[in-house]
C-alpha cells in the first residue's frame, strides 16, 4: 500500500487512538500517511471518527480535557506532540465545516488574524502583501478588494468559507486540514471551493474530511475509508473506488450503508 519513499510523506499517523470517554475509542489504532502536495480524503459514515482523526492532526482535541489521545503523529518526521502548539498550528492550518470568520474583524483583519492573535508584528506593507496574496489564492480578491475593511460576516457563505481558507493559508502552512468544508454550502459555492482545493494542492498538502463520496472521487488523490473508528482501507483514490479490497469499503461505496 505504501510504496512511496518516506520523505514524500508529510504526515505519518502511528497507531493513533482517541477516546472521548475512557474505554470507548472514537478512533482506534489508526496508522496511515499523507503524501506531500496531494489531496487525501477521509471518508466514512457519520460517527466513524473521521473528523476526530482530522482534529488530532493539529491537536484541536487539547481544547477538551476529557479527550485522551494515544499513539503518535509525525509531521516531517517530528512528533507533533513535541512541538509547541503555536508552531504546529502555523504548519497545520484548519478550515471548518461552517464558515467561521471572526465576526468582530474586517475581511482584512480576518486574513491576518493568525499573526495579530499571536503577537507577530508585521509592517503595513507586509500585511497588505499577505492579504492580497492569500485572497488571490482563494480567488476572492476581485470580489472583495473594494470592501476589505468591511466585516467578514457580510460575505455570502461560500465567500466566507474562502475567506476562512485565506485566513488559514496566510500563515503559509504545510498542511491544510479541511473538515467537510462544503457541507454548509450550495452546489455553486461547493464547486468553487473544489476548484480552489485543486489549485491549492500545488502549494500545500490537503487533508479533506468528507461524507460526500463523489466529492472524494472528484478531487482527491488518495483516500482513506473509516468505519467505527477503524481505518478500513486506504490507497490511491482511483484504486480504492474501482477495486476496493475490503467488503466494508465496497458496501459503503455502493451505498449499502452510510
Amino acid at each position, binding site marked *: 500500500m505504501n510504496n512511496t519513499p518516506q520523505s514524500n510523506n508529510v504526515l505519518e499517523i502511528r497507531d493513533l487512538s482517541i477516546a472521548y470517554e475512557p474505554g470507548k475509542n472514537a478512533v482506534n489504532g489508526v496508522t496511515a500517511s499523507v503524501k506531500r502536495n496531494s489531496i487525501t480524503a477521509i471518508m466514512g459514515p457519520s460517527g466513524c471518527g473521521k473528523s476526530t482523526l482530522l482534529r488530532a492532526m*493539529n491537536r*484541536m482535541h487539547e*481544547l477538551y480535557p476529557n479527550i485522551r489521545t494515544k499513539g503518535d503523529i509525525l509531521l516531517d518526521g517530528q512528533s507533533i506532540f513535541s512541538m509547541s*502548539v*503555536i*508552531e*504546529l*498550528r*502555523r504548519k497545520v*492550518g*484548519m478550515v*471548518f*465545516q*461552517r464558515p*467561521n*470568520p*471572526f*465576526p*468582530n474583524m474586517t475581511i482584512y483583519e480576518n486574513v491576518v*488574524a*493568525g499573526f*495579530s*492573535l*499571536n*503577537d507577530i508584528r508585521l509592517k503595513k506593507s507586509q500585511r497588505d502583501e499577505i492579504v492580497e496574496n492569500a485572497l488571490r489564492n482563494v480567488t476572492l480578491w476581485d470580489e472583495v478588494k473594494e470592501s476589505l475593511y468591511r*466585516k467578514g*460576516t457580510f460575505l455570502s457563505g461560500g465567500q466566507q468559507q474562502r475567506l*476562512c481558507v485565506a*485566513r*488559514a493559508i496566510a*500563515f503559509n502552512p504545510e498542511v491544510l486540514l479541511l473538515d467537510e468544508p462544503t457541507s454548509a454550502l450550495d452546489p455553486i459555492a461547493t464547486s468553487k471551493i473544489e476548484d480552489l482545493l485543486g489549485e491549492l494542492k500545488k502549494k500545500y498538502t490537503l487533508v479533506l474530511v468528507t461524507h460526500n463520496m463523489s466529492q472524494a472521487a472528484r478531487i482527491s488523490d488518495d483516500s482513506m475509508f473509516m468505519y467505527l473508528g477503524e481505518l478500513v482501507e486506504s490507497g490511491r483514490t482511483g484504486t480504492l473506488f474501482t477495486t476496493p479490497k475490503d467488503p466494508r469499503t465496497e458496501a459503503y461505496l455502493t451505498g449499502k450503508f452510510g
Partner: protein
Amino acid sequence: MTEMYPVLTDNISRRNRTNIRFRYLVIAGSVITVIPIFLIVGNLAVKGFRQINLAFFTKPAPDTFQAMMAASSGEIIPGGIANGLTGSLLMVVLASLFAIPLGLMTGIYIYENSSLKYARFIRNLTEILQGVPSIILGIIAYIWIVKNITRGYSALAGSVSLAIMMLPLIIRSTEETMRMIPVSIREAAFALGTPYYKMIYKILIPVSFSGLATGVLLALSRILGETAPLMLTALGSPAISLDVTRPVSAVPLLIWDFYNDPNMVSLVWSASLFLMVFVLSMNLLARSVASKHKYI
C-alpha cells in the same frame, strides 16, 4: 365512520366569539399594565417640571429654613440636587471599578469551566446573592467598611454595597452572552494557535461586547436608584463632597430627605423625575449599544 372521524359539533360562530373575547382580554391586560407607567411619568413631569432649572443641577439641597421661606411666599425652592448628583456619581464610578472587572472575570470563568463543580458552586452563589435584600448588603458594608475601615459613614461603604449588588447582574449577563458565541469561533481562534488569554480578550470580549455592555448598563441603572443600602453606609450629606472616606449624599437619598421635610415636597417630584428620566435613558442607551455592536 362517524366514530372514527368525529364531526365538530359546536358551531363555528361560537368559537369565533370566544376567540374575539379572548383577544380583547389580552389587549385589556396589556393596557392595564402600561397605564401605571404613564401615570407615574405624567405625574412626575407635571409636578416636578417647575423646579427643574440650572440651579437644580448646580446647587446643593437647600436647608429647611430657605425652603420654608420660599414655600411660604410661593416661590421656587432654591437649591437643587448637586450634592446628590456628585455623591451618586462618585459611588457609581467606584462601584463600577470594583464590580465590572470582577464580574466580567467571574462570568468568563464560570462560562469557561461550566463542567467544574467549583464553577457551578460559584454560579449558585451568584444566584443567591442576586436574591439578597439590598438592605442586608447595606448592613454587610456597614460592618465591613463603616465599622472597621473608614470608621464612620462613607462613600466607600456605599460603593461597596452597590458593587455587591452589581456583581451578580454582571456575572450572569457575561456568562449568558458568552454562551451565545458559537464554539466554531473559539475553535477558529485556537486553530490559529491563539493563546488562551488572547482568545478571551481579542475574540470573546469584542465579539460579545454588546451583550457585556448591556449587562453593565442595566446593572448601573439598577444601582442608581438604590436607596436602602446607602442609608446604612453613605448616610447622606448636605455638602458636595468627593472624599470617599466621608459621608456623601445620593439622588435617591435626597428624595428620602425631601420627603421627610414638609417644606421641600415639590423637590421630591423634581428629583424623582430626574432620576426616572436618567435611568430610562440608561436603558435606552443599553438598547442602542446592544443593537449597534451586535455580532452574534
